[in-house]
């Protein structure tokens, strides 16, 4: 396990069932997040961009287990957290499927345990396989023991800043209750004085003053409310913060303030951000790396510079061409995508982007493009990467 990877998401899937009829039979699945894998290094900011309805928020919520994912592995800080929030029975089933069955099947296929370990593609699962083959029973047992303790640890380590600062604060609670609640629940403080000192400290750090403590949320502006939301998450001393469109509900001038605040807090607390946004300017400002999502899948994942310099996926190219250019002399060539985003209930065959892709060929509707590394640190899911030029 590399030490600098904080979050690793493997094949995350979240389907929402569509139910109808008297017996509420499931007639279809909304494939909100469909096989998403990426990793986030400690201390970096990863931007997750895509248009409305592409599953960015669902992905963020599933990672924090505010929705229970349909499938997939979420590894935080070197620990598989995927089964933490499942019931005992389901957690056992998950571990059996994820580890026991998988490893046993691979063992039959590759004949030796070392070969299995060698053929696993990521560090975490290699280590898991090693532990598993040493003592299968004890391995599962140990994982189950960690479940309840892991839950509260996960809830402390991973936090979220929400899009709408108006509905994310309980209108009946004072600021000190909203901010202090997390510390109290997670037992970070021993008594009231300590809690008060902690709240004061955090409020100052996010740019609010101590006399805001006993006010109610409705007495604040949008930007200030978002600061309260940040303080609420920050008091737990988290490692990962998922910012779900954290600035899109704010004025542009306030947006800059909040982004700068997030930036300085990141340096101070060594935070890792997963920054979900639809505004490319915001993403460009704050991210180190960017993942582009389309219809529940990540289509391109690379560093910010590479993405803005040399986008490879046609969808990314089209997105980039939509950024307004302030220079009137330089008339940019816009790539206008035709049609609407297809329904995630019934996504297109082959490459999900092919019905709208300007360079789509016949093969695109048949073959699903693999999400693979084309250049160093530049992953793309396209059969013809880089063929669409600006």
């Amino acid at each position: 396990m590399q030490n600098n990877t904080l979050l690793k998401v493997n094949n995350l899937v979240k389907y929402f069932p569509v139910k109808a009829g008297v017996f509420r039979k499931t007639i279809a699945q909304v494939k909100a997040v469909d096989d998403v894998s990426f990793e986030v290094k400690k201390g970096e900011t990863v931007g997750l961009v895509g248009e409305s309805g592409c599953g960015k928020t669902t992905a963020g919520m599933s990672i924090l287990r505010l929705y229970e994912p349909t499938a997939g592995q979420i590894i935080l800080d070197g620990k598989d957290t995927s089964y933490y929030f499942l019931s005992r029975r389901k957690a056992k089933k998950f571990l059996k499927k994820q580890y026991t069955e998988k490893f046993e099947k691979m063992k039959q296929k590759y004949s030796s345990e070392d070969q299995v370990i060698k053929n696993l593609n990521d560090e975490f699962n290699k280590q898991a396989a090693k532990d598993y083959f040493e003592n299968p029973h004890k391995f599962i047992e140990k994982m189950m023991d960690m479940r309840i303790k892991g839950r509260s640890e996960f809830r402390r380590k991973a936090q979220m800043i929400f899009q709408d600062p108006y509905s994310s604060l309980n209108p009946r609670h004072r600021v000190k209750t909203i901010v202090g609640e997390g510390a109290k629940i997670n037992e970070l403080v021993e008594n009231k004085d300590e809690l008060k000192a902690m709240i004061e400290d955090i409020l100052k750090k996010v740019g609010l003053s101590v006399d805001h403590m006993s006010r109610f949320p409705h007495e604040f502006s949008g930007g200030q409310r978002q600061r309260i939301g940040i303080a609420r998450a920050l008091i737990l001393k988290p490692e990962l913060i998922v910012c779900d469109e954290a600035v899109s509900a704010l004025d542009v001038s306030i947006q800059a303030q909040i982004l700068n605040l997030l930036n300085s807090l990141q340096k101070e607390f060594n935070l890792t951000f997963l920054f979900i946004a639809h505004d490319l300017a915001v993403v460009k400002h704050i991210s180190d790396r960017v993942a582009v999502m389309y219809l529940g899948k990540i289509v391109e994942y690379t560093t910010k510079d590479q993405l803005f310099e040399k986008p490879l996926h046609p969808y990314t190219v089209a997105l980039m061409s939509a950024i307004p250019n302030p220079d009137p002399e330089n008339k940019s060539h816009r790539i206008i995508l035709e049609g609407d985003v297809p329904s995630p209930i019934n996504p297109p065959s082959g490459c999900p982007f092919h019905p709208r892709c300007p360079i789509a060929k016949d093969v695109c509707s048949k073959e699903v493009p693999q999400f693979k590394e084309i250049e160093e640190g530049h992953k793309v899911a396209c059969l013809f990467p880089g063929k669409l030029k600006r």
Partner: protein
Amino acid sequence: MSSEYRKFKRKFLKNPLNIICSLIFIFFLLVAFFPSFFAPYNPLTMDPDSFMSPPSSQHWFGTDQFGRDILSRIIYGVQGSLFIASMAIVFASIAGTIIGSVSGYFGGAVDNIIMRFIDAMFAFPSIILALFIIALFGATIRNLIIAIGIIYIPIFSRTIRGSAISIKQNLYIVSARSIGKKSSKIILTDIIPNISSIFIVSFTTNFSTAILSEASLGFLGLGVPPPYPTLGRMVGDGNNFLLSAPWITLFPGLIIAVIVLSINIVGDGLRDTLDPKN
């Protein structure tokens, strides 16, 4: 919060009808709390000199077939009726709030099971349910409270469940979960405080109908056992003398109507002021 309260007070008192009905209701509350202060006679003493005497300066509301002063009986009856109805509603509202918020917050299978059970209670005629309980356990004040309370549990559960579901959509519930708050605590500190306005409104409106339920049980002879007066029983007892001595029935009936009407208008006023749409 205090500014919110002031705003609410100003809005509520703007309507003169609200003020009048609140005052009437407060007057009846005072009567219920201090009946001995208001009643001119003992409600149980029979006066052999005046059977069924019409309203006069001595007996403002007349006397009944045993010569008991109707005004005094009404005053003590108001105490009984208000006590039974309010206790029943307190019982029903607490139970209904717990059931409704749990059902609405958890949703899914839990919600389905609870709500089908509530549906079954709704399907049962409420007065018959109360009759059944009283017939089974006897007509004591405690059983009356439980019987009437049970009638109102499904009503509260439904209302509270509906608003719990809408409160649940708010991001602050998600954010409470994201800091590791337990479900029971989310219901207590995030859901229930935010449904208080709906709670107040349904409390008052159901309170008035609970008074009517109590009166109907009394009318059917299943209220507080005689000779202790309740408004419903007085109406029922006077029924036989409706033509010869209408005042025996008229005055208790009138008082029931005035109390229920005033509570209803106060309830409507509360709803109008607490409704965020206005």
